[in-house]
């Protein structure tokens, strides 16, 4: 069955109600001779229902992730962004981006893995762990993805307060 963004939003609202912290649609028109509207759903949910919300998305269509997981730091929390796409594969492939955001408190940077729902997200979760220091609970492979094994465990390269090693002891020794 073909997907429509209004239907996805309506079903998410019905299912999660107050657990949705923010919801909007980004609209953009592309094309010169043939105009085509493009819409992306941006939804922010609480950490409590995040895993269930991803599972719920999967009941509506085929879930895919091909855009990078991103993050944004605020004073007391870190916002993680999961740019999923949802498609039915019917007709014009019928792909709808659903960008899901979740807030993690700075004193408890942890979230449950979604590799059980979408195995292809494994590398992104591993990178999130090593670059941002977020603990991905129950991740099947918690190893680092990119950084050198000699780096200190508490060095998280993409955190704003830790852009450079603090002293010589944090330099990589080969």
């Amino acid at each position, binding site marked *: 069955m073909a997907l429509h963004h209004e239907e996805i939003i309506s079903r998410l609202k019905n299912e999660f109600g107050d657990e949705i912290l923010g919801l909007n649609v980004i609209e953009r028109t592309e094309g*010169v001779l043939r105009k085509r509207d493009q819409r992306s759903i941006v939804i922010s949910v609480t950490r409590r229902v995040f895993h269930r919300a991803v599972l719920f998305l999967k009941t509506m269509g085929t879930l895919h992730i091909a855009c990078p997981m991103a993050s944004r730091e605020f004073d007391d929390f870190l916002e993680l962004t999961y740019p999923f796409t949802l498609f039915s594969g019917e007709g014009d*492939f019928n792909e709808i981006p659903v960008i899901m955001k979740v807030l993690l408190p700075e004193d408890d940077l942890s979230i449950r893995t979604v590799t059980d729902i979408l195995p*292809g997200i494994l590398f992104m979760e591993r990178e999130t762990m090593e670059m941002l220091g977020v603990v991905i609970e129950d991740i099947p492979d918690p190893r680092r993805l990119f950084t050198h094994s000699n780096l200190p465990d508490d060095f998280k390269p993409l955190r704003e307060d830790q852009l450079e090693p603090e002293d010589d002891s944090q330099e990589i020794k080969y």
Partner: protein
Amino acid sequence: MSTRQTYPLHIGPTHPAFKEPIQFNFEIEGEKVITCDIEFGYTHRAVEHIARERNFIQILYLLERICGICSVSHPMAYCLAVEQAAEIEVPPRAKYIRTIIGELERLHSHLLWTGVAAHEIGFDTLFLYTWNIREKVLDCLEAITGNRINYGILTIGGVRRDITPDLFPVLQETLDYYYDVFERAREIILDNMSVQLRCKNVGVLSREDALAYCAVGPTARASGIPKDVRVDYPVNAYPDIEWLKPVSPLDAGREPRGDVYDRMIVRVLEIRQSIDIIHFCMDNMPDGPVDIEPKATKMISALKKKQGEGIGRYEAPRGEVSHYDILDNREGPLLMKVKAPTYSNGITWLKMFNNVEIADIPIVIASIDPCVACADRMSFVDAGGRRSVLTSTDLHKMSVEKQKRIGK
């Protein structure tokens, strides 16, 4: 007690079959791969970190250097993300020029890949043939942009150089050349018995696995997933092209099985598709300006007043390239996150290597068109702990021997 005996086999991190360093750790039983593990990070250059110290325009040239072959794809995804976040409308002519440059890049990337794949199976005549005909498109890119790679043509809000009337004959001559050679090239690549023997039913990625592991680009399309950002989420001139659809092995009369041969079919047919897209863009090229602001400092000042987030998605030759950018009243993005196609397709290797023979490892690795590279180290540790080294020559010899064996 199990009598099954397996052996570790390490390939990489640098090896002639790769275009960038990466480590593969296999468990082998006899000649068959049982399990595979991959280690990344040998060429991690912290581009996202470096970008924090650059302004919006400087980042364009940093991103061109993520990948020499996809040197228009990363800046394209970045420009699309920033333009979405800052709500910038690109002039129509610039959209068409972007499409032409992107398709020329796809043309030369697919020809390059075909040559690499041919070399991996010991078919060096085809390797030299495809790389020879690839020169024409590189010459064309040089005539239009000034460079064979790292074109420096994209900018936020348009392109830096127009395709002037005197360049149209150069472009037309290039297209005519590829129209002429395509059928012959297709025949040599796809109908050749050696290619078919080495590529059919090797490195299979099922449709279910391709979906579960989020494959992108030709790798996904070869497994029967009609996914192509140019059709699903089109930008530039792609929404105007009514006949554009994702290429499938079905277009060559073959039911998609997700093997190396299907990936080859998709890339070869996309060469023809790219020629047709460029032709469409030349015939329908709008008049008008090619950018909204030629002065970099003015553009940076304008972007400094913006706040917002944007995702740029672009179908690079290897698959979907996406960038996530956050604008927050700074001279550069607050955050820039990059996702290259190999990042998505790399995890699918774990499935493709199931029951693959050692001699087929290079072609299976190459089949997703990875960004992994050069040098010469492959060690093999046997059960007694004795260690020997197989050089690139040894590995190539094994591949050629298999070719002779199955060709009899």
